[in-house]
């Protein structure tokens, strides 16, 4: 399985071929608290890196989820509609948000690896 890359907006990306799977990081789900609703993008939507494409709502607040790279949405995680708490229990696996066909895989080079992301999180604390 490909290595995860991380954005400064606390999303993770896993690239398989030219399809990227995207979710929010374990750090992000901890900060949000109990997730009660997720609004996910429609397949076919074209997005640029940095576009707000999904919303995650905890009891307390709503947060945007951004596309870490540009491309076309191919699929959203329908299981989150019935079980949004999966974002808390499995943020970096079954709790993925959406998949997209990446327009330019070199955009992933701008993202952090796990070690750099951890350092980034520590610097924000």
């Amino acid at each position, binding site marked *: 399985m490909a290595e995860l890359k991380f954005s400064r907006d606390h999303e993770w990306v896993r690239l398989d071929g030219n399809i990227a799977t995207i979710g929010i990081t374990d750090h992000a789900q901890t900060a949000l*608290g*109990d997730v*009660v609703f997720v609004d996910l993008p429609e397949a076919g939507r074209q997005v640029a890196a940095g576009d707000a494409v999904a919303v995650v709502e905890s*009891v307390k607040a709503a947060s945007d989820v951004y596309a870490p790279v540009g491309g076309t949405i191919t699929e959203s995680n329908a299981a989150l509609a019935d079980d*949004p708490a999966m974002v808390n229990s499995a943020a970096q696996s079954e709790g993925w948000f959406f998949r997209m066909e990446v327009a330019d895989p070199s955009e992933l080079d701008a993202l952090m690896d796990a070690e750099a992301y951890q350092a980034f999180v520590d610097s924000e604390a």
Partner: protein
Amino acid sequence: MAETLLETPLASLHRELGARMVPFAGYAMPVQYPAGILAEHLATRRGATLFDVSHMGQAELRGEGAAEALERLTPADVRILKPGRQKYGLLTTEAGGILDDFMVANLGDRLFLVLNASRKDVDCAAIEAALPAGVTLNRLPDRALLAFQGPAAVPALAALAPDVAALPFMGVAATRIGDIPVLVSRSGYTGEDGVEISVAGDRAEILARALLALTGAAPAGLGARDSLRLEAGLCLYGNDIDETTSPVEAGLTWTIGKRRRTEWNFPGAARVREELENGPARLRVGILPEGRQPARAHTAIAVGGETVGEVTSGTFGPSLNGPCAMGYVARGHAADGTALELMVRGRAIPARVAATPFIPHRYAR
């Protein structure tokens, strides 16, 4: 952080319990513990939870004519309040807005007040400015306030303080929990049975630990407190009521004493009287959005594409297992069942005006 946050006497206990602390009204307060808001909310409805609300203002009014003096600032009937009883009331502005909402208890020789943290300075200045000679306001900054809430709270507390179980809803008594002198009122902000306990700050941690050691008790933070009070249909000052909202618009006319409605001698009486006679332009209503997405404060409310109001509080209600909100709508759209659209992120979410509380109150009788 630019400003130094104040701490309550339970600050070190919160840290020990793993609380996530957030700034609130100038204080570092626990928004949640490791269990999380959802679990803390449900634990309150099912069992017993302990909230630190020591940021709230506590004060006492002493002297002959204290009740009459307070009535200069509120439309509540304070004089009718019997010793050992507490009531909820509003401080009003000359323009007919709400300066704050508060609790007042008659302790026999004095009145005891509980004020919102964000408003206590404003309130006390207003009260002091209205006091006649012989009546004094004593602020009690060295006292802590704990809320022990939920159906199991009073039964569990009775092991330490048997007389608390005999208190009726909104009853108040000076008593002891173990050997700690406390002032207990059978009240709260969750819709559940429970008590609020005023205690000397230097005994607060001992008391909190004793309460948390009771069977089934757990700590709960401000996050759960907010979702609990919203499900219970209770207003939050600064969100649902403020200096621009009147008691009539807020649906809080029940806090205006019958006698006060013949005297009309409280701040803002002209606006209140006019709105009672002709109806207010807008009304606070409960709102149930369809689906699961919460509509938060400041969400625009529309009917047929036209804006008719705004959400003032909105969350996901853990006991409802769905979103709930309250807000103000033009009076013509305030009837229960009225279809509304909530404009969330550019989309219209269908919703209905609904009676509050969303979760029935279960206060002691």
